[in-house]
């Protein structure tokens, strides 16, 4: 790494803030994704189905107006 001179603290702070912000965002998004997948798997394991999944024709993906 080159000598970043007298303003090195500003450069490191900028990259540090960017890394921390992205890491926090990624952690929150991945944690939410895992939580929803866990909840969905739990409901499905108890035999609960979405109404659109229940009414969908055999062999076709269930279609609903909303996700």
């Amino acid at each position, binding site marked *: 790494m080159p000598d970043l001179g007298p303003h090195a603290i*500003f450069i490191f702070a900028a990259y540090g803030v960017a890394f921390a912000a992205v890491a926090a965002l990624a952690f929150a998004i991945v944690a939410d994704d895992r939580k*929803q997948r866990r909840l969905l798997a739990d409901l499905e394991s108890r035999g609960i189905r979405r109404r659109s999944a229940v009414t969908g024709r055999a062999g076709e993906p269930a279609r609903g107006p909303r*996700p």
Partner: protein
Amino acid sequence: MPSLANPTRFLDLAGRLIPWLAVLTAILFGIGLYLAFFVAPPDYQQGETVRIMFVHVPAAWLAMSGYALIAVASLGTLIWRHPLADVAAKAAAPIGATFALIALVTGSLWGKPMWGTYWVWDARLTSMLVLFLLYLGLIALWQAIEEPGRAGRAAAILGLVGAINIPIIKFSVDWWNTLHQPASIVRVGAPTIDPSMLGALAVMALAFTLLFVLLHLIAMRAEILRRRVRAMQRTQVEHAALAET
């Protein structure tokens, strides 16, 4: 594209893309950071602080692009009633807000050694702050209205109204006298930035773009699943009520 209107097909595609995108994003960040710190030379005027550009500029671009995505998705919600449009808009808001915050903070940290101040109320900085506040407003609106359909339509209106800020940010450096430098890359004519820095900036911009797409896909998947979970929980409650009667 029409097949992506089906959330189930979207989930399948997202599941296949996410691991590849994660690997590609990590590789590009590795290359980009190497170029930014070991290959790109210091600027003849700004010295080593120009290295802040490699994170500041892509973050600002993605903050603006994220809002443009929300504006297009808002049209999708209000006009075409695309089933994934409000999911895309809702998922993009926190990501765009984070990139806007990164652009503001890194710009401030770049401004102090170069301008002698962390902040001035000039047109570019202020319009960028407005963008960040618009993102927060959208997130708050989504949180305030429980029913996703209603929340989506309300947020779509705010999303479209706020889109007027995007050209203001872009052209603020031309329309007003600002401390912020004028456009040096996306401009009429060739970029004014030296090719030795442009390469590193291009790789970092691509890495940031892939990071945005990656996080957006994961957030959209989580939102689709959240709505499914809510629908199934409602079905469960209805079945329990029927069983009691």
